């Protein structure tokens, strides 16, 4: 069902009812536009433009959400990571348990470049991403020799190897356990200070230049990922997920396509990791740890693997619980002072676990799957009434 997003051909399974929808019906027109690339990218851009305002500054809504600017930026950064990860997990059907290697590796690479060569944000993103691509090439080449659980374990092992390398043998580069401190991020195009607020209406919506920079890259990442899903690759990836042996026996070089899926997904992780360094001006050693690999799996599955935007939603929910819900002192009944649970925020891991189990149990296609079901329900109603 979530496949529909990336797959215009799969729609109109029932031509007569979709013809009935076209015409004066606004909903029908929307259904037609929905699959188009321009629509998807445009809606993403609108979302990115209003998200920090709604989240951190809008009256009522933001009071309720309790969001803040920097978290909005972080959600988009992890969102880029999740989109790339889902190309591998949701579409190609390969579970990597070592994507911290690309996220953390790119974070370190861009930080080291900033300290030693140039703190230009664009140079940082390009160098971090290039590092992640080369690393994904190497680790993919080694890990994809095996399938299934062995592939997952190999990726985990290589990523942990990177973690221990960064912790001690390479401490002269990475600053070991303390993480890479003192990363000096330069001005964008030499003039724009990223931490500064954007003046006037742009500032009200977007907040900082950093958010605008990340937001621009996020929209570009969505456009590229959506195009990949609509290219021959998108079809081949899903074919490999569905029936790898058959894909080989129609004459496709499955191994090379899998390697490309791994590299593309590593590139997205690399872009995100570099932005993470720019965002925090610091690289924690934690960024290479296996828990980061686990987080991205949980976020992707929570939001809905195999859908374009599900993983981004998963990122939002995860980071929201981790950063906002965890600070709630006591859970009260709304608009009263009656305390339900004391030290509610303390249990955020438990809450996240319960949400995750509930989602996987009730809607295996993730939170985005719920939206898909509602949409199908509505479109059946709208189509049926005509």
């Amino acid at each position: 069902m979530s496949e529909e997003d990336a797959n215009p051909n799969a729609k109109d399974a029932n031509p007569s009812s979709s013809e009935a929808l076209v015409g004066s019906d606004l909903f029908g027109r929307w259904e037609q536009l929905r699959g188009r690339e321009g629509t998807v990218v445009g809606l993403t851009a609108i979302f990115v433009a209003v998200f920090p305002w709604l989240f951190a500054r809008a009256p009522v809504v933001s009071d309720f959400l309790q969001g803040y600017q920097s978290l909005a930026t972080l959600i988009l950064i992890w969102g880029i990571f999740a989109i790339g990860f889902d190309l591998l997990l949701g579409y190609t059907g390969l579970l990597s348990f070592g994507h911290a290697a690309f996220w953390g590796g790119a974070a370190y690479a861009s930080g080291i470049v900033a300290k030693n060569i140039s703190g230009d944000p664009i140079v940082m993103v390009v160098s971090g991403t290039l590092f992640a691509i080369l690393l994904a090439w190497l680790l993919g080449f080694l890990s994809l020799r095996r399938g299934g659980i062995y592939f997952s374990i190999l990726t985990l092992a290589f990523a942990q190897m990177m973690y221990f390398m960064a912790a001690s043998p390479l401490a002269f580069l990475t600053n070991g356990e303390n993480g890479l401190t003192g990363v000096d991020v330069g001005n964008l195009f030499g003039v724009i200070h990223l931490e500064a607020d954007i003046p006037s209406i742009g500032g009200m919506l977007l907040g900082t230049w950093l958010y605008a920079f990340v937001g621009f890259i996020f929209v570009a990442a969505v456009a590229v990922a959506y195009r990949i899903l609509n290219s021959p690759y998108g079809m081949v990836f899903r074919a490999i997920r569905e029936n790898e042996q058959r894909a080989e026996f129609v004459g496709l070089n499955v191994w090379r396509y899998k390697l490309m899926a791994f590299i593309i997904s590593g590139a997205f992780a690399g872009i995100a990791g570099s932005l993470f360094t720019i965002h925090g001006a610091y690289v924690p050693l934690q960024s290479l740890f296996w828990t980061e690999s686990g987080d991205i799996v949980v976020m992707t599955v929570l939001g809905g693997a195999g859908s374009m935007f599900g993983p981004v939603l998963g990122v939002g929910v995860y980071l929201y619980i981790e950063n906002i819900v965890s600070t709630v002192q006591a859970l009260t009944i709304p608009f009263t002072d009656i305390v339900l649970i004391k030290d509610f925020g303390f249990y955020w891991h438990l809450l996240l676990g319960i949400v995750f189990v509930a989602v996987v149990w009730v809607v295996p296609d993730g939170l985005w799957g719920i939206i898909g079901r509602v949409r199908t329900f509505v479109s059946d109603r709208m189509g049926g009434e005509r």
Partner: protein
Amino acid sequence: MPLLETENLVKEFGGLVATDDVNLTVEEDERVSIIGPNGAGKSTLINLITRRLDPTSGDIRFKGESIVNLEPHEVVQRGVSKSFQTASIFPDLTVRENAEIAALAAERGAFGFEFLRHRDALTDVHDVARDTLNSVGLLERADTIATDLPYGDKRRLEIGIALASEPDLLLMDEPTAGMSPEETKSTVELIEQVKRDHGLTFVLVEHDMEIVFSISDRIVVLSRGGIIAEGTPDEIRGNEAVQEAYLGGVEI
């Protein structure tokens, strides 16, 4: 020069000889059936030719060139396609996409870097997929998710995928296995029609003797891994060794 040739082909699984010194030739435009009792090594032979299995010894030549060191997808790219014994399709993809996957491999090769090119631009792939679906009678169901097809149609799609890879030689492993009499009938009609329209060379592995005798130019009989007889349907019908292989086990 024959299209396909195996030379002293042997496959052993542990102590069991599944393929015993097989010398098989298939000429261009020929329709060859491989028959034999259960466990005669028919599927093993097909799997050796498609490179799903490595031979213990011997050589396989396609269009005069040895293919024993190639990967399965390279063999398909040379022009050998296979339809599986079970409906081996891409269940969550649409019928059209199932055909397009194979057409993509046929038109654009085993691998490419076109990950930023929109699929709508691949008109050659769309054309091949549409023609193939038309010839297997599934064009009207092109937008159906493959897993929702009835079993007979899944097997048709399976043959469609094999055809969309535009093979010179099509290997069919029991195309009517598990089918109802009606489905079998329509599959046989499909094979007859493919034979007429595409002029394909094919090798058929089949249990149903009626089908074998009606659509083959030549029949090869396997028993215990080796060829015990080959000839036209009429020659095979009266062959004593064949009768022995099929009935002997029962009598003893």
